[in-house]
């Protein structure tokens, strides 16, 4: 009887072996669910909610967010894995698999009487060794375009269709390369714009910006070329004065006059803009003028702008102000007094595209765009979300490999290599903690095993083949998902992120050892402590 039940007879508890069994079964349960989704040949999952909403995905991160996990241990693992995704953008499924496998391997030893503490010590040693091995196997050097492309395809093929993945990888690489600057990469400068389109599914890269709104005046031009872009954060909207001051007037005309005087304030601002336009675009120069405002522009002001042939866009996204100045040059102004020629940006063409009730404005042909837009077209909501999630991950993968300055050969190559080296390492260690190292080494093999099972091959066969090859060959070897043979991932262009692998090794070991060391699970306590 547990001590807690003396204090609180209502408490639920599970002790020692029972507690471990609870944790292990939960970890393996969640592993079973995610197993089939690993690798380029993994299956998709279609989630249908009670009301009939559909979501189709094989991205581990999305799945864990969508599935309702009740079991506390399972949800702990799920949270750890999704946190992993937040940090690096990939590796969710692998994390879940390895944690499950570590516990499974440990279970065998514990049932034979090995103390969990000894096992975890071994695992931690093995992890340190594995991290060393990771340093050894990684392919260093500033990645060129081809390498980045390989990187992106590897990541994307595990998330979407092969055909789609290859196309998207190209776009992602181009996007990241064009926004790359001296001081690093800010992925916010890649705008993802969704368009729900009846017929086509297509993703394109726009070297410039696509805004999700258009002009709100019928007389404004729909398409202009050689355009100066003015980005500003100035209200061009008439608001009644703040204080509750009534007008005192005798006649209707007088009232009209007073109202006009109040409006005049806003009108002056618009006139400033028009003045600038006249200065930079003299008639006949073939140049035109576009105002993109973060604040509102009311119909009167729009009217004044339209008469001058200026396109006026209101309520632009806050982040787009920054993007605009990166894409077109110039800078955003906060006051009409700052408006000079220097703050203007330039775009070769600006045009509007209408789709249903939505208007889009394309700002294209910029001189040196440091901000780009990926335009996603799809027939329905879930396709769009699926593509968007995948692009997010693709961009992250590319950024990671540029930041790391290194990549790791994929297709299970690292796991096989680490297994082999850990076998050697094991012999150098004395005592029972070598069991932990053995468990760790075996657990890593789950990745190549699952990849081959998902591709329809026999796992044991594959592992044996790989182990043989690995012993003989000099370079890393991995699973060929098409033929079931061994391949050279470096030649085949299959790469994983260095930081993702590193993170997986770290977090899996920590979580697995924590779960192993649990000897009592209690559910009790004051409800007030839940907060």
């Amino acid at each position: 009887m547990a001590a807690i039940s003396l204090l609180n007879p209502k408490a639920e508890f599970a002790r020692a072996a029972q507690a471990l069994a609870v944790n292990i079964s939960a970890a393996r349960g969640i592993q079973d669910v995610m197993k089939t989704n690993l690798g380029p040949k993994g299956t998709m999952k279609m989630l249908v909610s009670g009301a009939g909403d559909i979501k189709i995905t094989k991205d581990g991160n999305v799945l864990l967010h969508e599935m309702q996990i009740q079991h506390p241990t399972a949800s702990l693992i799920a949270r750890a894995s999704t946190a992993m995704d937040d940090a690096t953008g990939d590796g969710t499924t692998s994390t879940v698999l390895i944690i499950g496998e570590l516990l499974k391997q440990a279970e065998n030893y514990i049932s034979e009487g090995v103390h969990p503490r000894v096992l975890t010590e071994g695992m931690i040693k093995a992890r340190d060794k594995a991290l060393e091995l990771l340093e050894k196997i990684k392919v260093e050097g500033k990645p060129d375009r081809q390498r980045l492309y390989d990187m992106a395809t590897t990541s994307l093929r595990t998330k979407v269709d092969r055909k789609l993945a290859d196309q998207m990888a190209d776009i992602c690489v181009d996007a990241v390369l064009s926004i790359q600057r001296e001081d690093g990469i800010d992925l916010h400068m890649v705008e993802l714009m969704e368009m729900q389109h009846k017929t086509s599914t297509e993703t394109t890269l726009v070297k410039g910006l696509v805004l999700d709104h258009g002009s709100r005046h019928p007389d404004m031009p729909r398409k202009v070329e050689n355009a100066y872009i003015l980005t500003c954060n100035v209200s061009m909207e008439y608001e009644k004065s703040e204080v509750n001051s009534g007008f005192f007037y005798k006649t209707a005309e007088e009232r009209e006059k007073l109202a006009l005087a109040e409006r005049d304030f806003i009108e002056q601002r618009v006139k400033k803009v028009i003045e600038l336009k006249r200065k930079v675009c003299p008639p006949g120069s073939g140049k035109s003028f576009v105002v993109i405002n973060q604040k509102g522009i009311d119909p009167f002001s729009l009217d004044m702008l339209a008469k001058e042939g200026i396109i006026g866009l209101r309520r632009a996204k806050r982040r787009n102000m920054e993007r605009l100045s990166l894409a077109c040059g110039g800078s955003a102004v906060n006051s009409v007094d700052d408006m000079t020629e220097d703050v203007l940006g330039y775009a070769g063409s600006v045009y509007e595209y209408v789709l249903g009730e939505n208007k889009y404005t394309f700002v294209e042909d910029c001189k040196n765009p440091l901000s780009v837009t990926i335009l996603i077209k799809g027939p329905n909501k879930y396709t769009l979300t699926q593509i968007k999630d995948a692009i997010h991950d693709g961009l992250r993968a590319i950024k990671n490999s540029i930041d790391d300055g290194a990549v790791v050969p994929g297709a299970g190559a690292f796991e096989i290599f680490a297994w082999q080296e850990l076998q050697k390492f094991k012999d150098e260690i004395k005592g029972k903690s070598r069991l932990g190292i053995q468990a760790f080494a075996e657990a890593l093999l789950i990745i190549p095993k699952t990849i081959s099972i998902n591709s329809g091959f026999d796992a044991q066969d594959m592992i044996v083949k790989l182990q043989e090859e690995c012993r003989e060959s000099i370079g890393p070897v991995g699973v060929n998902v098409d033929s079931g043979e061994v391949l050279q991932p470096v030649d085949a262009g299959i790469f994983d992120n260095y930081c993702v692998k590193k993170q997986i090794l770290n977090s899996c070991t920590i979580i697995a050892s924590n779960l192993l060391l649990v000897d009592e699970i209690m559910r009790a306590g004051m409800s007030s402590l839940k907060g």
Partner: protein
Amino acid sequence: MNSTREIITLQFGHYSNFIGSHFWNLQEASFNYDENCEPQEICNDVLYREGVNMKGEVTYTPRMLCVDLKNSYYQLPDVHGGLYDLESSDLDEELLDSSTKIQTIREELVPHNEYFADLAKQEQFIDNGVEEKLNVTEKVYNLDNDVKIWSDFLKARFHPRTITSIDEYKHNDTSNLFNNFAQGMALWDSYKMKEIWTDNLRLYAEECDYLQGFHISMDSLNGFGGLACKSLEYLKDEYSNKNIIAMPVMSNNYIIGDENSELYAVNTSLLFSSLFEHSNMFVPLSTSDGGWVKSQKHLSLDYLCYKNELDYHSSAILASAIDTFTLGYRSRSDCGSMKTECTRLTPLGRKAVSASIQLPLGFESKSNLLDFLQESKLPLWQPISPRCITEMSVAQTVVLRGINEKMLYSNNFIRDSKNPSHHCTSVSAMLKLYLSFCDNVRMTEVYAFDSSLETIAPFPNIFSQYVNQHGFLESTYRSATSVVAKCTAISGLHNSNSTRDMLIELQTDSSKVKCSKLSHVFNYEIDLMDYKETLENLLVLSDNYSTNDCL
């Protein structure tokens, strides 16, 4: 060019959405699709937007954004969906195209309740061109036991960008509660709120030519207060000089359901203090007298028999009140705006305002307004703000609806030339005259509208047996098979000195909570010092209400 002064509605939290669902149902029930009839007095464009869907059909949906926890609502495809979806046959083609295997995980289907089943049937009949009609408007429904969440009675259809679901917390999840202000504030930083929600808001704002402001309702007892508070800060920043009317709401059901109630007062004080700073006016709403603490006493209206512990019922009353007291600046005749309303009702920084309602008016079917007013006792309404009374007001707005000019005097009425009440030409004039005699509030604005509340299903059937189908009193019972389809109502906003008591009580209730218990509640957004300052601040603000001789 039309000059509708648009309003964007924002709803945070489950009870707010309960009220919202009733509110939008009420709006939809009052729509008139007859082309030939003269324009209504209420301008729906203020709250609604017109759009075009992918099939080229015109849609008319609320200009509204709501936020709720995961699993707190569902959207039934044959009731709610469809406005912006394409045919589902595309899906099957899509699936056949892709070469990968697909594993399907299906949740249990949500069963339709009686009302939705009838709606779906009706839709089918229309699609198939069958003449047979189901009269949904005249059938008596009893949904009291079926309604668990707000989408259970939501008839109105929304634009796809309307609903934001918070994935971090689940509805009714006892192991991971969303019950404190700081959690809500931290939630603002999530991608869903900071990127998607603000973008959706911007898209609504971009469409508006003359955006005048925001209606924001939020649950004040749980974490949604914090989330709403952060979004208010954002609104102040991005949409400065727009008006914000906030409505913190308190569900009685929520309080009964949880014995651990000390956080409620704390959350509410934090919210109120932030509303003083960021809103132009705020109206706390609750049908029970306690508000943030458990209380037996609750709003009792003479001709309603509702169950206060049912959110479905209490929210219907609050929704009717909101629908009525906002009519002043939603009418077609250009008589008011949010700005004038706010500045008039909130002199000297008294931003907290209480609300009141009487539903239905105890107006007998053959009676007239003059007789009704002469026989009635003051006040005409009951307060629906916790710990508030409506007397001792310095300013008020009263809106009466459902009484038209034909009901001013009785048919065989003899005019007394000296009595001013015998010469009123409009309903509002007579009510104003009456209030100027009986009620000593200095600044009273009165509006009256002919159109009554459309209380057809899914409005709960909570009227007393003596109310007839048109919402007037009858001496005989209404037959069990008929529903109250329309209803008269009076509702008002009052800036009353009693708000001072409310603020002081709130401060006392929250300072009873031991600080040691709170330390784990707060996070980096807010700490104990901030909280203590907040409580001090509430006291300072309550002083605004103490001077009687203001104005």
